């Protein structure tokens, strides 16, 4: 009986404790069984892919071709970065010329340099290209010159935009686009990335899709360390990303190109600069691609025409005059000046009657000369020399021309030699025409491919010139009465009230 009462007492004792416990607590927290922190020891730093075993070609070109490297458009690179690339170019026979701003002393303008260059390389420009420069480059490419343009999304310039009163990154893609527009190539203002498979960072993208081209021979894998995409409709997409490679512009996209070749093959645009710089130039097949790019720069077949004067001669030059050309003290002075001009450019020019076999020629002769070298002019369709001083000169692209006072410059490019003819009505006129050889310019002439017409000497009056013109100008000012009609001033202009 007593035991029963004790049970009851204990129960009543526990009751408020249980009640309070249940008031606050409804169970015990059980930590998740899978709870764990990352296994930090298992993470490994990604290592760069090993260098391709295939070593690039090392054959050296015998002739040194000039490659122009633009540094006049606020280009965002250091020469030290390009050491390896420039050294390889030089080893392969290129002569590299840096194109700086022309206001720097001794700098030849681009238009002069493009006359003799084989290739023009523009990397990460930040200053706009003038329309005339774009036209010059377009013409350069049309005549076999090679253009390599490289843009890089990491080289945007941080600047203050005064027009917007704000700071920001100025994309150099738009600047390069102005140069590439004639070739149907344009950069996107983006960067490419791959979050699934990359070379250490999402912006370090592997490229394994290549179009068939000499630039992509033997390539199996390239790595670009920060690249932007390029669009073209008519050109060839040389290198494209896989389906996991996206553009930052839309976070999507397939077949995004990072290297493009223009339809005519003369222009290559690449969306990354870093692959040219150490150590990224030694990763995967990057060295092979660089080697192909060097081939591209050096393999162009430049055609030269008169607009490329004075860089049309490849050999030593022989200056020939026709037999009816009298050598006097006056014309000797002119010829010596021409010789000095060519010597200053590092080209030998000799005055001779019998040119060496492998030399280029400059022929000075009047139209009616019987020079044996005139046979070379037979190859020019539509050219007819005046048979006497009253006959007309027939020149291709220009038609029938009165030859008096007009000099004709003709460039004949044979397999063995290049010959420049300077022809005019008289020997004095020829010497006057030869004056342009000293100035390197044909600015004062009308030029069409390999033919130029220049003023040389004075025009002959054949009866339809100044004598038929009325020289009796009346410069007297009109009298006031002449300004009004005879019947006095006109009625005033009616106003709305009237």
């Amino acid at each position, binding site marked *: *009986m007593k035991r*029963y*009462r*004790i049970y*009851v*007492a*204990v*129960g*009543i*004792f*526990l*009751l*408020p*404790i249980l*009640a*309070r*416990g249940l*008031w*606050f*607590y*409804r*169970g*015990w*927290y059980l*930590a*998740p069984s*899978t*709870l*764990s*922190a*990352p*296994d*930090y020891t298992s*993470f*490994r*730093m*990604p*290592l*760069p892919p090993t260098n391709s075993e295939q070593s690039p070609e090392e054959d050296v070109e015998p002739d040194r071709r000039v490659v122009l490297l633009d540094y006049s458009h606020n280009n965002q690179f250091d020469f030290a970065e390009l050491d390896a690339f420039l050294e390889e170019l030089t080893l392969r026979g290129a002569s590299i010329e840096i194109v700086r701003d022309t206001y720097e002393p001794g700098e030849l303008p681009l238009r002069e340099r493009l006359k003799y260059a084989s290739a023009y390389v523009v990397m990460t420009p930040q200053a706009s290209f003038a329309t005339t420069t774009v036209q010059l480059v377009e013409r350069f490419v049309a005549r076999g010159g090679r253009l390599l343009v490289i843009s890089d999304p990491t080289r945007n310039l*941080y600047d203050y935009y005064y027009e917007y009163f704000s700071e*920001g*990154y100025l994309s150099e893609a738009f600047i390069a686009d102005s140069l590439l527009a004639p070739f149907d190539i344009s950069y996107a203002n983006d960067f490419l990335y791959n*979050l*699934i498979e990359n070379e*250490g*960072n*999402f912006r*370090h993208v592997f490229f394994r899709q290549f179009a068939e081209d000499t630039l992509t021979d033997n390539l199996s894998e390239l790595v670009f360390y920060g690249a932007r995409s390029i669009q073209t409709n008519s050109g060839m997409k040389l290198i494209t990303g896989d389906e*996991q490679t996206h553009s930052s512009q839309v*976070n999507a996209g397939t077949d995004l190109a990072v290297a493009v070749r223009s339809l005519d093959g003369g222009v290559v645009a690449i969306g990354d600069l870093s692959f040219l710089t150490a*150590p990224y130039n030694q990763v995967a097949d990057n060295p092979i691609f660089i080697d192909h790019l060097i081939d591209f720069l050096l393999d162009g077949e430049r055609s030269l025409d008169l607009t490329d004067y004075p860089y049309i001669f490849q050999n030593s030059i022989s200056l020939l005059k026709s037999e009816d050309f009298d050598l006097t003290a006056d014309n000797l002075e002119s010829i010596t000046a021409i010789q000095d001009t060519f010597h200053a450019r590092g080209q030998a020019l000799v005055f001779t009657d019998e040119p060496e076999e492998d030399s280029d020629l400059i022929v000075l002769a009047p139209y009616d000369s019987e020079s044996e070298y005139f046979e070379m002019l037979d190859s020019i369709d539509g050219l007819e020399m005046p048979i006497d001083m009253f006959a007309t000169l027939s020149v291709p692209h220009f038609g029938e021309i009165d030859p008096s006072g007009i000099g004709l410059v003709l460039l004949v490019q044979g397999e063995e030699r290049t010959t420049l003819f300077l022809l005019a009505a008289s020997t004095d006129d020829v010497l006057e025409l030869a004056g342009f050889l000293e100035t390197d310019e044909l600015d004062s002439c009308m030029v069409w491919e390999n033919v130029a017409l220049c003023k040389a000497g004075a025009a002959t009056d054949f009866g339809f010139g100044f004598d038929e013109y009325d020289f009796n100008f009346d410069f007297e000012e009109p009298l006031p009465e002449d300004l009004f009609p005879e019947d006095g001033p006109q009625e005033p202009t009616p106003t709305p009230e009237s």
Partner: protein
Amino acid sequence: MSDAPAQENWKTPRTILIFLILPLLVGSTFAFIIPRPQIGIIRLNDAIYFESADALIQQIEHAREDTQIRAVLLVLNTPGGTVVDTEAVYLELIRLRARKPVVVYVQGMAASGGYYLSAAANEIYSGPSSVIGNVGVIVTLPEAPFIVEDIVTTGPYKMTGTGRDTTLREIDVIKQGFYQAVVLGRGDRLKLDVEGLLSGRTWLASEALQHGLIDGLGSLSEALDHTARLAKIQHYDTVELQDLSDNPLSSAVGFFTETAEGIITPLPNKAGIFLLYIPPSARRLP
């Protein structure tokens, strides 16, 4: 007949006093030994760096040792911060979570390192327009190795500590840790794929919910209720752990750059590797 004496006995005042009232009074007194449960609230309205992380860790340790605190609600409004400090707090939260539930409530922003901390929580709740995500690492590359005439070192990286390329690869290791932390923390609830998660995007909380980055939208009091549910408690008290810790709330001045005009910018005041969200208006790292 046999029950009659028993009924008789209960009717005596003495018996009732000894066996009913006295046990009830003693039991009621003893019941107060059972503490009223508390939810510890830890607040972070700052970047994560040495001082703020130190304060957080002290509060977390306090919550872990205090038996009355049955759960912790971490209220975040942070763009993240340094890698080492974020990882330090994260690991302390993981230890705490092994003993007590941890819930995160995002009151403004849990970006980058802030979301790293959130990944340690059992559940994540947020105000509807808070900003969540920005999973990734950001770094300013060190200078390329250089030598100067008057300072001589015994190795090429003695001056810079590491190379530029190496730094790029090192942050990938940190990124892997961040990614794993999120995957482990969110488990099956995570709907984003690798690309989506590592894109570094920030998400509005409502979007983040769809992607499984958080568990729900609501108010702070609702988040407290969720915390209590996980801790299996009710009628709880809340306690601001910052008041209990020795370390007062730190100031962001120690981490962010201050302009000459006294304006605090969202940029760290020295170079380093960060789990940090930097708004687009301030793009340049030191």
